[in-house]
């Protein structure tokens, strides 16, 4: 199962990155946004490092006709800036600001066996399920919606 092994490797890289960067720590994440208080600019450096590697890497990877273990690249195709995008991202930010966890930070934090991470991840999954099945009953699968993330 090389495909699964490499997905595991990608996950290990992700978890290592979140842990080393400090983004596993809600206090550090929140301090980035607290310019008027205990400001910690680390998150900007994390995003900068991740963006440069991803932008260059994606450019190289996209020269190939297809990924190694699939017949095509699964990329979002929607282009329009609509109300759900702006409203959803804004709601995400309010939750992130309250809890200090975002999806990418909270999943690796489960590996630290921190109870708060378990509570947050469970609540987030409940929110996704509520949104998907109650607010957007037509959107029950991921692929046809062509999401970014």
């Amino acid at each position, binding site marked *: 199962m090389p495909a699964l092994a490499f*997905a595991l490797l990608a996950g290990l890289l992700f978890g290592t990155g979140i*842990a080393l960067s400090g983004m596993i720590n809600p206090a550090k994440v929140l301090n980035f946004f607290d310019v008027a208080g205990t400001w910690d600019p680390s998150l900007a450096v994390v995003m900068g*490092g991740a963006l440069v590697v991803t932008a260059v890497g994606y450019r190289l990877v996209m020269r190939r006709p297809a990924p190694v273990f699939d017949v095509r690249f699964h990329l979002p195709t929607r282009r329009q800036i609509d109300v759900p995008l702006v409203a959803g991202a804004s709601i*995400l930010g309010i939750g992130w600001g309250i809890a200090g966890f975002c999806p990418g930070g909270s999943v690796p934090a489960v590996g630290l066996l921190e109870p708060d991470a378990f509570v947050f991840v469970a609540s987030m999954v409940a929110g996704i399920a509520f949104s998907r099945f109650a607010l957007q009953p037509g959107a029950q699968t991921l692929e046809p919606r062509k999401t970014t993330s």
Partner: protein
Amino acid sequence: MTEFTPWMSLVGGMFIGLSAVTLMALHGRIAGLSHILAGAVLPSQSLRGWRIAFLVGAVAAPLALSSVPGVTIPFSSATPLPWLIFGGVLVGIGVQLGSGCTSGHGVCGLARFSTRSVVATLCFMATTAATVFVVRHVFGGF
């Protein structure tokens, strides 16, 4: 109070980028944690295996790192339980409506120069900053 850690954060960020590039090169997928998680645990018609494998890795790495003698991974969460649950539900609703999160829009989307991801990232950065300001400086913090 947390210290500015430019080098560790830069290296950590580059690992996050390597993860995104690896997943795209091999599986052709965006490394967006919210949708990998949702696709793994909620009913859907899409493939589960690679998502579960990715999540196992994402959880196992900090678990392994923190069990190395002498290594401590700083963690501090001050949000009271009801607010933590409320914040989690809001994040869940937000990523579903907005088609992505900090990793999907903020890293993978921006790296593809996606206009939707630029708009989403500006929106959530702004509302997060506003929320932190209100929580800490209007209400005096948790």
